[in-house]
């Protein structure tokens, strides 16, 4: 703990680097998975191929991927881009299946309604399917973000690992305080990210949390309730 307080500026620098290395792949992963999901969601054959590739990618050990990427795309071995690319691949592999499942879970009558009312397929994807997939997608994103926070530290082995560098040097110098500092900061980072995504998702999907909304809308109910239809109030209690 003392080490952490004494070396806070250095730790802070590593923390921001760590945050960058874990956040960027999460965002790229979400965008990629959503794109793939929305485009290929109702094409069974492409879907099967994508799902198999995603599973395969996810089984590659992260360290191996960090080392292999430079030879594949010609980056320097110490380039942070290697870690960013590897983690983006993991995130999108993890999330693409979530997106497929979330899109499948949209009620068929809602999709029929959209079709019958005059949505074109592309428009429906964006304005009906996508928002309805947000809830499960957010849950998946929380997992992906936390996974990335922990995987970034593996990058320390190749010299790019944010707080992971504290593990490497703490281990080499046999200095547990430094390792502890790394663990504490990573835990805090993971927790904060997880909460932020959860809160963001909640704000983006108000319809999934209507329990609270129901009460407030009853309280704010304007005008005279007696002019309402007989069936009007029954929905409130349910």
């Amino acid at each position, binding site marked *: 703990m003392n080490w952490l307080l004494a070396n806070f500026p250095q730790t802070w620098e590593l923390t921001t680097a760590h945050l960058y290395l874990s956040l960027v792949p999460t965002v790229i992963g979400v965008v990629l998975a959503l794109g793939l999901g929305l485009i290929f969601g109702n094409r069974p054959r492409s879907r099967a191929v994508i799902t198999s590739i995603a599973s395969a990618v996810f089984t590659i050990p992260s360290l191996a991927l960090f080392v292999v990427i430079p030879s594949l795309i010609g980056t320097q071995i110490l380039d942070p881009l290697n870690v960013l690319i590897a983690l983006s691949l993991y995130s999108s592999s993890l999330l693409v299946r979530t997106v497929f499942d979330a899109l499948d879970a949209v*009620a068929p*009558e*809602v999709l*029929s*309604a*959209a*079709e*019958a*009312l*005059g*949505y*074109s397929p592309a*428009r429906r994807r964006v304005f*009906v399917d996508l*928002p*309805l997939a947000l809830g499960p997608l957010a849950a998946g994103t929380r997992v992906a973000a936390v996974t990335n926070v922990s995987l970034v530290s593996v990058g320390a082995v190749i010299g790019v690992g944010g707080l992971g560098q504290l593990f490497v040097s703490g281990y080499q110098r046999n200095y547990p305080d430094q390792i502890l500092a790394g663990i504490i900061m990573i835990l805090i980072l993971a927790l904060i990210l997880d909460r932020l995504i959860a809160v963001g998702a909640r704000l983006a*999907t*108000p*319809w999934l949390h*209507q329990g609270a*909304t*129901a009460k407030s*809308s009853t309280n704010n*109910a*304007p*005008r005279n*309730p007696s*002019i*309402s*239809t007989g*069936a*009007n109030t*029954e*929905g*409130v209690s*349910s």
Partner: protein
Amino acid sequence: MITFESVSKSYPGGTRAVDELNLEIATGSFTVLVGPSGCGKTTSMRMINRMVTPSSGRVLIDGQDVSGIRAVTLRLGIGYVLQNAGLFPHRTVLDNVGTVQRLLGLNKAQARAKAYEALERVGLDASLALRYPAQLSGGQQQRVGVARALAADPPILLMDEPFSAVDPIVRLELQQEVQRLQAEIKKTIVMVTHDIDEALTLGDKIAVLAPGGVLQQYADPLSILTRPATNFVSSLVSKDRGFRALSFESLTGLSTTELPAPDTAGRIHLPTLGNGFSAEINHDAATVCWSDGVTVRSAPQPIIRPGDSLRTGLDAVLASPSSAALLADHDGNIGSYFTLADLQPLLSKATRVSS
């Protein structure tokens, strides 16, 4: 006018959903496609807005083949109500109702203003406007579904078993609401149902389809009841057929007895009825309670109006403890009553007509 010209639909594997369907649906009419599951009624209806493409034959709207109209454009001009309302869970009631206007290019504020109007038209309170569908009862959701279909004021309205998922009381309420709306807005409505009662109550014209998509009869409700064209139609309408046919007979020519003046407490004494019943009229609710002064005091009974059917009149008499029902005149004044004996001539006439 919606025209089906020898339309068939078969699926790979040889299942035939619709078989050589010919149908002319008049503009402004309420047409019900009725039949058991697998009779192709929904399939047929969905050909109108191109959600299903016929294997052969054509569907025309006002003489224009729908296959020549862009599906999205066509659908924006046709209202659609689904069985389970099919509301968008992520949009408020208001934005659900404004969906078609948004698709037509109106901005959010304009669409919402139209949506408020549509909510009012289907009898939904504005305080529900900002709720999400999950916060509504089934009946309310279905009303929102109807409001959404009507909001853009399309000339044609398609309804796919719109009332089958709600409880009987709400169903009756919604059916009456749709009848009231139709009298007001005069759309061309095509509705699909498996419930022959619903078809007989709501339809101007009924198309009865049998499994395999074969049209059995296309006629007005009274003809379906009294002159079923095939055995299939007779079996469909066999229950309570005689009694139901009375729905299409008026009370014209009913002889009635004038009510005496009420006493100081507002009761009307009718000593000739049974053990001497008295009637207590609730003018606001248009109901009457019968009492014999000793043991019986009935629940409020409806008061019959001149436009009511013979079935309603007979039902009122059968349900009344005094075996009499009160009749209001065209101005709403309740001045006379009638009994089973008064209905007798009308009933015999109805039997002669329908046989």
